[in-house]
């Protein structure tokens, strides 16, 4: 499969077929998740209604990490094997991941104010996620900083791989340091500690965010691959005009 989709045309075909299915899945999952999250789930016994922020905050934060791992792995594959589609995938993922990270920070802030009494604290979890946000911005800036796009993707791929050390720091920051942020309650050795009534809307929203990511990823990759063909076309035309 890895080699199969090294052909951009083949990948384009798949992406074009997948896009509407991913769009449909996103709408259905988000509708179900929003209904359960806003109407059909109970308020928390400690946090009251603010617990509903969890249904957008946690998926955004998960996707921030998921997208970064996807970005770094695709960038590495593009760098090592010169896989042309992997490189496009990395570039297309960056702005989506940056949006998710921004939303995780923003909704976290809106949840922190009523529960902790502060919009922001410089603790390990919040700071490491802020670093993740800057990694995304740095990747995008470096990627487009060179006249030669090949050099841009090489340099930014290295940045993305180095930035990968931040991922376990974010994940375990709540265990390694004293923090206001609550520890993990879903991915635990002893199973989730959330009641199913809250777990369901959360899973549905995580599903919706994932299909949204894949949907927008397909759109952005199709755009990049179309632009590559455009450039090749223009070059042919320019050569013919010059000949």
């Amino acid at each position: 499969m890895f080699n199969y989709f090294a052909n951009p045309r083949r990948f384009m075909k798949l992406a074009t077929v997948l896009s509407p299915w991913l769009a449909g899945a996103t709408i259905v999952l988000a509708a179900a998740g929003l209904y359960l999250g806003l109407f059909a789930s109970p308020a928390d016994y400690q946090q009251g209604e603010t617990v509903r922020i969890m249904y957008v905050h946690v998926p955004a934060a998960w996707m921030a990490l998921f997208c970064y791992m996807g970005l770094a792995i695709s960038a590495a594959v593009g760098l090592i094997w010169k896989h042309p589609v992997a490189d496009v995938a990395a570039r297309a993922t960056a702005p989506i991941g940056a949006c998710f990270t921004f939303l995780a920070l923003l909704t976290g802030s809106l949840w922190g104010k009523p529960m902790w009494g502060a919009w922001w604290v410089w603790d390990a979890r919040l700071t490491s996620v802020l670093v993740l946000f800057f990694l995304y911005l740095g990747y995008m800036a470096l990627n487009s900083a060179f006249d030669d796009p090949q050099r841009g993707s090489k340099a930014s791929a290295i940045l993305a791989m180095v930035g990968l050390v931040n991922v376990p720091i974010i994940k375990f920051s709540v265990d390694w340091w004293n923090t206001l942020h609550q520890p993990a309650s879903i991915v635990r050795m002893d199973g989730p500690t959330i009641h199913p009534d809250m777990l369901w809307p959360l899973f549905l929203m995580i599903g919706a965010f994932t299909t949204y990511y894949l949907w927008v990823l397909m759109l952005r990759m199709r755009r990049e691959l179309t632009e590559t063909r455009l450039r090749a076309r223009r070059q042919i035309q320019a050569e013919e005009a010059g000949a």
Partner: protein
Amino acid sequence: MTKISEFLDMGGYAGFIWPSYGAVIAVLAVLLWLSLRGLKAAERELAQLEGDAPRARRARPTDDGAARP
């Protein structure tokens, strides 16, 4: 009516909960819109270029062949 306003009030946390959901929907909608718009623009341009391209492509071999003086 009171049920709706009670729901919108979110136990007094309306000022935190609704902006969270609003920001998520707004940011994701704008990103989707920009991505779709960019794809459509690129596809339109390629279709335009490829509209006159087949001529250019077919003309090429003859250019390289006997037609050239």
